[in-house]
């Protein structure tokens, strides 16, 4: 049998899938999501993920351009002059959980060392101007101005985490009148 045509098609498809495939990035915070039966697929872009686990909160947002602009805005807000090189490096970090004062130090590390860096999570307290609030607020502004879309928020909580940790994140969101968000879960049959 002549396999040439079949081989061609197979490799064409293979190339297509390799190119479109998104590399699965490793999460710095290991989160064990709870299962649920009613699920919807999460959109690919204009989504910010708030991971909650081990009492820490990590922040992640999709899109390199959005990340760059976001760091720029945050630098202005907290008077930290981030260089263009730092913004470039920051734009490939999918999730992070360091206070903004440590961010420069964290960005400067290479990928292997970042894993070992003790990330304490993004600081949240009861005041209206905590760092998580700023990240969320600026991320919304940046997404609106760059993509002209409303930013969606997804909470990725650890199943064993106690409820108050989750409540803290929801309170921050609700203070900015975000009453609709997604909870990332795994699929379970009824």
């Amino acid at each position, binding site marked *: *049998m*002549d*396999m*040439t045509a*079949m*081989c061609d098609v*197979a*490799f064409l*498809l*293979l190339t297509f*899938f*390799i190119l*479109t*495939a*998104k590399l*699965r990035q490793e999460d710095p915070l290991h989160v064990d999501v*709870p*299962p*649920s*039966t*009613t*699920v*919807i*697929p*999460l959109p*690919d872009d204009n989504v910010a993920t708030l991971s*909650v686990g081990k009492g820490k909160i990590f922040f992640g947002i999709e899109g390199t351009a959005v990340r760059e602009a976001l760091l720029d805005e945050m630098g202005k807000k907290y008077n930290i002059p981030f260089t263009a090189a730092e913004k470039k490096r920051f734009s490939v970090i999918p999730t992070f959980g360091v206070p903004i004062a440590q961010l420069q130090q964290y960005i400067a590390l290479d990928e292997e060392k970042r894993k070992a860096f003790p990330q304490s999570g993004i600081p949240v307290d009861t005041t209206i101007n905590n760092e998580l609030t700023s990240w969320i607020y600026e991320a919304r502004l940046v997404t609106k101005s760059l993509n002209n879309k409303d930013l969606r928020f*997804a*909470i*990725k*909580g*650890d*199943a*064993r*985490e*106690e*409820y*108050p*940790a*989750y*409540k803290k994140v*929801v309170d921050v969101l*609700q203070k900015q*009148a975000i*009453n*609709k*968000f*997604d*909870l*990332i*879960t*795994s*699929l379970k049959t*009824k």
Partner: protein
Amino acid sequence: MAELDTSGGGKKGGKIRSKKASTRIDLTAMVDLAFLLITFFIMTTTLAKPKAMDMFMPDKSKPEVQLPVPETRTMTLWLGSNSKIEWFVGKPGGSRPTIDNFGKDGIRKTLVEQNKKIEETHQGPDNFMIVLVKPSDKSTYKDFVNIIDEINIAGIKSYGVVDITPGEVAQLKKDGNY
């Protein structure tokens, strides 16, 4: 079949002929490998997409839009520690809360039964049950997601997540679920 011709020319007439190699190569293994990789990439790309559950919270910024809720249509759920639930229908303090578990025969059955009961005993278009979820500080995130999920499964039209009060925590403590 695409195979390498290794038989050679044989010995015809005593002459030694050079081997005539075929230009066709057996591609079977290569195609196998290609399809295996395709399968792998198809699987990983579609399954890696995160799944999520929609969650709506009441708008806190507009307290004036809160509607009065008839107590007889309200079911209150407290989430305690160790995945225990306490629930009651009606006014707080009216009846002793029932302790329940998660699962098919636990809270799911309760939700469906109570919903039916309330729809039967009430008149009008607004006769659905309203569920108030009050997670205590000792409940886990998993319990919270579970209960919202159960509410979705039971088809409850209206539910809300409310903060638990110290009095309710005391009742949970008394029952050993805090």
